[in-house]
């Protein structure tokens, strides 16, 4: 309902001097201002929905405690405890849990692409004169920032395992998490862009992203896996992210750090490129 009292009458509005009319916009918007504003919105929106914050961080912690504690007593020797022999499986599973938090946050934030489309917010962004690249960058970087921050929050639990993270090490973890987050958010964006329901989104995510996490070295190590599983793990780009994280946390991993970082960065570039290509093609396709 409109309250007439709160509205200026047409006569009052007409009295506004036309000199007050601002100029028309005649210059390009640039790439970064629109991207930054979309990035900012992603962050504000996430933290204003408290249930989401609790969900993305709470459920992986429960996973970690239950699976970690349960498996920890079931198999405690050899490769399972690689790099963290003293702390057992809970420690082995720690980097995998961080990746899971990143994955959950990435999924949650990119679901907003579908909500934005349903609500009409996205349409308004698409008719703005900003480059399509800004839209992809703002959205994906926003989601990746959130995912990284959520992962970092989990790092506060490291001292409970007697893992002490030094200053430089902290930033190394931050950087690796950022790379992993970018790839997963990019993947989420690509899945979400063409879908019109969050049910479909969850179906696809459960089909690809969750299994990718299961065979990423998060739950069980490369070294102990059978020949076929090992091959699948080596073909899974997420494995390189998990192993890079393990390397910076514990200083030991199944893969050399340079390979792990290189593949993860390549994965990032690929996801961003596909996302950009999809967004640019939209108007041509007439969807």
């Amino acid at each position, binding site marked *: 309902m*409109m309250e007439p009292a709160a509205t*200026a009458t047409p006569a009052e509005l007409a009295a506004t001097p036309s000199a007050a009319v601002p100029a028309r916009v005649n210059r390009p918007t640039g790439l970064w*201002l629109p991207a930054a*504003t979309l990035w900012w919105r992603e962050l504000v*929106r996430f933290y204003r929905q408290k249930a989401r914050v609790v969900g993305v961080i709470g459920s992986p912690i429960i996973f970690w405690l239950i699976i970690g504690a349960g498996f920890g007593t079931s198999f405690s020797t050899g490769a399972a405890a690689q790099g963290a022999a003293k702390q057992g499986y809970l420690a082995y599973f720690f980097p995998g849990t961080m990746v899971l938090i990143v994955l959950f946050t990435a999924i949650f934030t990119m679901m907003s692409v579908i909500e934005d489309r349903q609500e009409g*917010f996205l349409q*308004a962004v698409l008719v703005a004169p900003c480059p399509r690249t800004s839209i992809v960058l703002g959205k994906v970087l926003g989601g990746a920032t959130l995912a990284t921050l959520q992962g970092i929050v989990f790092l506060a639990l490291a001292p409970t395992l007697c893992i002490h993270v030094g200053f430089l090490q902290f930033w190394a973890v931050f950087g690796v998490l950022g790379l992993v987050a970018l790839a997963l958010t990019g993947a989420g964006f690509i899945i979400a862009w063409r879908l019109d329901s969050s049910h479909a989104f969850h179906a696809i995510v459960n089909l690809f992203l969750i299994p990718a996490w299961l065979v990423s070295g998060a739950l069980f190590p490369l070294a102990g896996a059978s020949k076929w599983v090992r091959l699948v793990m080596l073909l899974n780009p997420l494995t390189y992210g998990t192993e890079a994280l393990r390397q910076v946390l514990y200083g030991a991993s199944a893969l050399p750090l340079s390979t792990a970082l290189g593949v993860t960065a390549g994965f990032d570039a690929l996801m961003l490129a596909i996302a950009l290509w999809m967004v640019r093609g939209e*108007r041509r396709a*007439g969807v």
Partner: protein
Amino acid sequence: MAFAVEVENIGHCYGELRALAGVSFTVGDSEIFGLLGPNGGGKSTLFRILSTLMRPQEGTARVGGYDLLREPDLVRRCLGVVFQASSLDLKLTAEENLRHQGHLYGLRGRDLQQRIELMLGRVGLADRRHTACEKLSGGQKRRIEIAKGLLHNPRLLLLDEPTTGLDPLARREMWSYLTLLRERDGIAVLTTTHLLEEAEDCDRLGILHKGHLAALGTPAELKQEIEGEVLVMEADAPERLRQGIQERLHQPAQVIGHQVRIERAQAHEFVPALMDAFGPQIRSVTVARPTLEDVFLRRTGQRWSIEAMGEAPAATAAEARA
């Protein structure tokens, strides 16, 4: 007069289904142009094309002199778009929504802040600037949408069914505001509508029916096509009545459903003759000055009310999918 929009021969198909065919018209600066039509008539498709969300398969349009196909970014700078669905982020406040919008259009700093103040004041919501949009009423949200669309001072404001879901008072306020924009700021307004009363208030109208522009002109011009008055009779056997009128009174008439329609000058003087001759056959007689409904009927051969209920479900579905 300079043209804010020039639509040239636009055509579009969804698969087999033709949504638009050879649509051409212009909208001048400071003009309120209404696209009137039933659901599925092609309005939404044309709106999506003009708002740069979709490329037309045939023809093109120029907005503010820029070509829709070749210079979409320049077109977008001239355009303010208000969609039927809310485009506000409900988690953000009114002011945050406007700031976000400004950034998307490359506005920033003091200039942007001044525009936000100005627009919030103009739509009468300066005191709600820090309210999350989810807490605003439907009418208030719609006003923030308009403020959003006008923040960069577009040359053309595109509106899709802007008064949907608004109560009559809010609807009137919206309309007087649009009139004001045209008069004071010289902004052209192109709005789609399926409400005849709203169409009456436009400077010029295009009636879109089955993808074709069935009529184009000012409401007055369109109604002038119909000479004099419109006489409508309800009858149980309309075809027999029509034949009788034609043979005995030499007056051409038209059958639509259970009604027989006559258009003629001084039609009210014709009523006694009709009643004398066919009284028992006629259930009721109405004499009225022509309305846009009559114009629609004359141009398309179909009744407005039936069409407006969505007689073309296939087209509506295709548009919804798009």
